[in-house]
């Protein structure tokens, strides 16, 4: 669908214009749903109702925010460059294997631009990575500049700040080691820098390995939602933020904002906030101008999600956008929406635990008969799904949402760490294929939920028999189990084990010894 060949017109995300009438109807459905929760005659248990109420306020806030973001999406038109100022290409490396960095370096050298210098920002030495010398060799082999830091501090942010101190070009384009720029990267983006107030131009992240497995597909489909309607919508409010890689940045704007903040692991997000505070502009260009790698397994995915969640939540708690001077209202809202997204984990888990309270203790949060609630809920949920489908140009998948919900415990851990101020080691997204690994430790909370849910259903059936309330709550447990399932599914190569088992079992019926030789000599 989106080959990364260099063509005259790059692949781009579709600009979806949602009929205003649909947005209005959807908004009406959301508000209608909200009114049910504000009618406190439905309260069963105040504690559980309170928890659900908070969760639902959060959901409503999120969908209203989404609606607000995609309310209108404008086309970004190509701007012909007036001049071709010097540009540095920064490739940040921190222990990635040489082969991966090499592709990026080779591609960067091929970028079609008159005044270009490629630098490898090698952080391997200060991060204690074994292969830091390989990267220096690579630079020599490809005849590009390698900036190897010797003074540690500030992780990726420190690495970039250090590079800025030893380079001079007025613009730099930043790529992670595994994000390979296309030849036309600069020619498509530099024109937007004609505007002297333009601080950075962000382009989407594209995962060329998206079809490798369930995780890479799900991760890519989440990116499609983010780099599709969400980022395009943010453009309207000048609220696009720098997303770590694939961005062209004006040096003066970044330095004006104090450089890359080194105290946060969401250095890109926070830097954007500071840049916007000082009145600079930003742009999201929805054209695919580089291709990278998706997290390949459950461990890498969990690490990536944890990092994003921790960084965003830190920003929300320490630099709450609502109280930042210099931002417009729309920018404040957009920053708050993006940072607050990771509270999702807590909210999902609150929702997920409510039915368990009924199953074990017979406590119900709400005291209303099903039909009435469904009248409010059904338009809300069905229109939410339809609106998602429409706004993503029919690309959103169940898998993407499932994978997000399944990661709720990861988000919860990030939230706890953020609130308690616990230090977290920066972890690089895995680029190495661990095929058939054992990641059960990441899925333990999800497995516990399944187990507790099943026990709860059996317990409630034993206590009440088949009543509508038991059926409804059991259905909710099933609902949550389905959403939590991907982490369990990806935690272990179950299928290979099952296939193996079946083969073993079938072996019993085949001719030859009753016990297969494989079992006798497991060392083989």
């Amino acid at each position: 669908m989106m080959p990364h060949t260099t063509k005259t017109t790059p692949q781009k995300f579709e600009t979806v214009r949602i009929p205003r009438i649909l947005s209005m109807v959807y908004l009406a459905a959301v508000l209608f749903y909200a009114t049910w929760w504000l009618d406190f005659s439905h309260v069963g248990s105040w504690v559980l109702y309170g928890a659900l109420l908070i969760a639902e306020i959060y959901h409503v806030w999120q969908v209203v925010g989404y609606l607000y973001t995609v309310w209108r999406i404008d086309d970004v038109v190509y701007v012909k460059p007036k001049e071709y100022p010097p540009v540095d290409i920064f490739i940040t490396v921190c222990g990635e294997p040489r082969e991966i960095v090499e592709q990026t370096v080779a591609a960067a050298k091929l970028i079609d631009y008159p005044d270009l210098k490629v630098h490898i920002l090698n952080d391997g030495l200060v991060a204690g990575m074994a292969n830091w010398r390989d990267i220096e060799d690579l630079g020599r082999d490809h005849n590009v500049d390698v900036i190897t830091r010797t003074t540690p501090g500030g992780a990726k942010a420190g690495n970039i700040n250090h590079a800025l101190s030893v380079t001079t070009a007025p613009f730099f384009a930043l790529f992670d080691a595994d994000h390979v720029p296309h030849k036309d990267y600069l020619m498509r983006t530099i024109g937007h820098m004609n505007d002297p107030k333009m601080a950075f131009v962000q382009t989407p992240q594209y995962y060329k390995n998206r079809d490798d497995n369930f995780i890479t597909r799900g991760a890519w489909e989440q990116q499609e939602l983010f780099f599709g309607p969400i980022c395009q919508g943010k453009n309207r409010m000048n609220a696009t933020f720098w997303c770590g890689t694939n961005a062209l940045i004006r040096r003066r704007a970044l330095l004006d904002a104090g450089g890359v903040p080194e105290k946060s692991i969401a250095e890109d997000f926070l830097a954007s906030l500071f840049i916007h505070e000082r009145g600079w502009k930003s742009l999201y260009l929805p054209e695919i101008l580089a291709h990278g790698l998706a997290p390949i397994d459950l461990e890498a995915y969990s690490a990536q999600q944890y990092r994003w969640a921790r960084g965003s939540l830190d920003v929300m708690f320490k630099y709450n956008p609502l109280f930042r001077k210099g931002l417009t209202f729309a920018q404040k809202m957009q920053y708050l929406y993006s940072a607050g997204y990771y509270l999702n984990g807590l909210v999902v888990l609150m929702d997920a635990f409510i039915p368990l309270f009924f199953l074990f203790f017979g406590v119900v949060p709400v005291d209303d008969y099903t039909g009435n609630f469904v009248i409010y809920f059904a338009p809300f949920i069905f229109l939410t799904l339809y609106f998602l489908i429409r706004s993503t140009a029919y690309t959103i998948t169940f898998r993407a949402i499932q994978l997000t919900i399944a990661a709720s415990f990861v988000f919860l851990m990030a939230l706890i760490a953020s609130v308690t101020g616990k230090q977290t080691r920066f972890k690089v997204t895995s680029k190495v294929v661990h095929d058939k690994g054992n990641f059960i430790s990441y899925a333990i909370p999800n497995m516990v939920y399944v187990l507790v849910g099943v026990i709860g259903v059996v317990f409630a059936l034993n206590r009440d028999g088949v009543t509508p309330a038991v059926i409804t709550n059991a259905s909710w447990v099933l609902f949550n189990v389905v959403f939590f399932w991907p982490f369990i599914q990806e935690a272990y190569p179950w299928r290979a084990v099952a296939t193996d088992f079946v083969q073993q079992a079938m072996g019993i019926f085949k001719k030859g010894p009753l016990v297969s030789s494989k079992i006798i000599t497991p060392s083989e």
Partner: protein
Amino acid sequence: MSQSSSSSPSASLGIIRWYDLAISAIWAIIGFGLFMRVWGLGAEGLRLDESQSVWQAMHSLDFIREYMLKNVHLPLHNSLLHLWMLLFGPSEASVRTLALIPGILSVPALYFLAREFIRPRWALYATAIAALSPFWVWYSREIRMYSLLTLITIFSYYAYVKILKENRVRWYVLYALVNIVGMYTHYFFFLILLVQLVYFFLTWRVRFSDRPPGEQVGEKRTMLRRFVLVGAVLVAGFVPWLYLLVTNYGSGSLAPILEKPDAFNVILQFYEFMFGFHTDTLTASLVGGWPILILGSFFFLSKRAPSSPLILLLPVGILLPVAIGFIASQYLPLFLSRYFIIVTPLLFIFVAWFIGELPTRSRIAVGGVFLAVLSVLLINQSIDPRVPTRENYREATQYISSQVGPRDIVVASPPYLVYPTQYYYHGDAMLTTYPIWDKRKGGIPAITDEILEQDLRAIKVGHSRIFFLVSTDLYGSKESKTYLDTHLTKIAKHQFSKNLWVHVYQAEYASKASPTPTGESWAESEEIPKGMIHVVAPGETLSKITFRYYGDYLQLSRIQKINGIRDPKIIHPGDILSIPEITPQKVL
């Protein structure tokens, strides 16, 4: 469709076999659904609504027309039934066959309609849903207008979609014809026309035809002109009835008294559309599983091509009538799931479309499970005697017939239970209703303590036992029963179906029987008439009463004779007259 080319490489043979197997299974399911429509068609007694149809259809076509002017329904169906009964008689199996025919025809008709929306294999799946639909099966076996209404609805949408796609004159002709039939079948048919109107303008900019763009210019305007013409024909076709409605009594005095619906009725209605009628426990459990439906809708999210704008007709056609009905019912309650059977054809197509749009694996699993659930529920609906819509008037009335003697009286409550009762009743005691109601005259009397007291006095007089046939879920039955319970001694009670009871009360002891004002004559007459009793109101004359009950004055002598009235000009307010029932044979 199930044919596979014989030259297929062997590698794909497995898939083709699976596909053929699935298609065969769907055909078997359709066959099963049709069988369940026919099976034991006459075995159950007529239900309340059915007996009303039969009672009305036993009269002349003129009477049917006059009666329907006061009713909430239209005359077409009962007129057809009238003619049908002339040919085939009034037995249960005979009259229900008239409902069965459109009920069976709706299944293939739905296939052709579904094919206009979705691919043939999913149209076949929609047909399987329709064939198995417990709701459709129920109304294919009930002699009311609902199966006919369903068939006409399908035809109407078919012609409408064909018009949108092809814009040919023949479809306009078909459209006009079926809509005229529809308009005379049920008032809710007008909601179909409204849906079609709304959808036409919603998709004003959409071109449905696949003709070259050059020919499409102005196509919608041509369509609009033609639709206006068809509209004029429809209006002309309906004006005669409107004229009668306006010049006669005005509709609605015989309207059933319904409760104002709340949100739960809407939910329940969709469950009935999909799953049919079951015991309250089972229905509540089915409704309780609603989060599964929400979960199912998430599976819909996948990479897909945008849906055809024609699909939009499905949600509009499903939701708009229900929404209008619900809102209107807050002022004038008319919210009954069977009235909205007009949304079911599109609902079944929508479900088939939805399942067909799921990712491959979920599609097979969800599609298979859904048909299996429908099959089980259809069987349950067909055999479970506790299903609340199953009304066993036949046995109840036969029981009464075998128990009563000439000095007893049979009382049906609420009053319209008189329809099924009189269909089966052949006992020696007189039959009346409580409160006393003259079914030709108008609506059921209001239930007040005064009326209950006055009518009980009239009923009690001269009778030893009251056989009280009551359907406890109907409006007014509770008040009547409570009144009897507190004022009389109960001798026995007996249940016949979920809500149908016979209570036996002691009225007056036979020895104490006192003559009624006009008494001796009718109490002593040899033949105790099986009919209504009437309390003469001030200002009433015997001829007025006669006309009201029979629609002609010639029957005056019957009332005079049976009540032993010497001078027809002399009757007094408060006199109790016995009004003999006209037996079907005499009308036909």
